[in-house]
């Protein structure tokens, strides 16, 4: 099946040129909170991708039936149900990581990316395109999350995916892990640098 140009951009735009975190500056709360280590960031990304693509698809299917007066509440209940479901699956299969993510899985409900895509995209477009839009935005969110987590884990703990990569001899020579990276301000700085780099490369101009 050949994808139309519009469907393709629904998927590819949010990855780079219209990334939900670094360009639209949405979903910052969780981007700061769960990026101390890669494993939590990866699981969180998958959780958001799952919630976003399913909720987008469901809302798109229902879009002509949803009464305009209660549309936000209907969107929220679909999203909330998906988040609870995701939380249950994580607790059943990835218990340790779900404990580390603690309240942040439940807080996906309040992630502006998800409500934003439901209201701005899924309410106007068909299910197939909405699914692609959900996947794209979820992946775009995940890319930034994993990018931030990569630098925070490397600089803050000297590990990548819980494996030691900075050799012991460095520590003996006086190298120290950056405590700042473990704390939220570290995430702010990394995220700021990523946003900066992306705007230079993508030649984004503030309107």
């Amino acid at each position: 099946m050949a994808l139309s140009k519009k469907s393709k951009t629904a998927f590819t735009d949010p990855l780079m040129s219209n990334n939900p975190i670094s360009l639209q500056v949405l979903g910052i709360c969780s981007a700061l909170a769960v990026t101390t280590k890669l494993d939590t960031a990866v699981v969180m990304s998958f959780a958001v991708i799952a919630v976003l693509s399913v909720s987008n698809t469901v809302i798109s299917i229902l879009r002509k039936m949803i009464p305009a007066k209660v549309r936000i509440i209907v969107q929220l209940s679909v999203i909330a149900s998906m988040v609870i479901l995701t939380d249950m699956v994580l607790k059943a299969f990835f218990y340790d990581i779900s404990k580390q993510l603690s309240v942040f899985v439940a807080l996906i409900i309040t992630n502006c990316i998800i409500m934003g895509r439901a209201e701005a995209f899924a309410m106007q477009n068909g299910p197939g395109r909405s699914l692609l839009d959900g996947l794209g935005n979820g992946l775009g969110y995940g890319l930034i999350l994993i990018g931030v987590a990569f630098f925070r884990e490397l600089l803050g703990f000297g590990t990548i995916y819980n494996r030691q990569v900075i050799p012991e001899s460095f520590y003996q020579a006086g190298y120290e892990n950056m405590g700042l990276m473990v704390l939220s301000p570290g995430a702010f700085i990394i995220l700021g640098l990523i946003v900066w780099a992306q705007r230079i490369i993508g030649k984004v101009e503030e309107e």
Partner: protein
Amino acid sequence: MHSNRYTLIFAMAITIVLAFFLSLADSSLKEKYEKNVEVDIRKNILISLGFSPTDVLLMNNENVESIFQNSIVGFVVDNSGSIVDNKLPQDIDPNVDLNLYPIYKRVSNNITEGYSIPISGKGLWGTMFGYFSIEPDGATAKGITFYQHIETPGLGGEVDKPWFQNNFVGKRFVDENGTLIGIQTVKGQVDDTSKEAYHLVDGISGATMTSRGLNQFLLKDLKLYDPYFSKIRTKRNG
């Protein structure tokens, strides 16, 4: 524009459908989840009894089961400190057996290496659950862990971090007369030169209420077990 009638029916229908799917998912995943919780509690008992946290956390469920079976002995004491025969920790019904308390003992080569008791009580936002371990002398802390709490991450939530838990190791919860005094968290850092430092640990900044709660319920739970541990102390001192 949809009519009010339609809006109401639609809202009801979507609620029922979503609730149905959620309860379906809940009932099919519940068993797995409960098993995870049980294993997690066992991991906490192991960690509080001095097993390395990094090793224990990487273990799969079967490994935890087998280590638990090989080196942990569970038994039950009553409120006079005597061991209750033919009862195991899992036989205790919290609604009926109000005066029976479980203890998990770490044994290797028939030598007792420590005792772990459940602790729980109110923090700032809700009840905290954990395990507190005691050295074979019945007077010194061996470790503390928390497996469930809803304290603020970064503040009270630090109770489940190694830096806080390691503070407890080696502290004594009885004074020189053998009276139970518990272990208290203090504001800021403990002055190690102080005479009182043996029962004080560094507090968590920004988490006064959590620390205060912990001080209280730790003492409350140690009191319940004190008849048993005071017997151990007298036996040791001859």
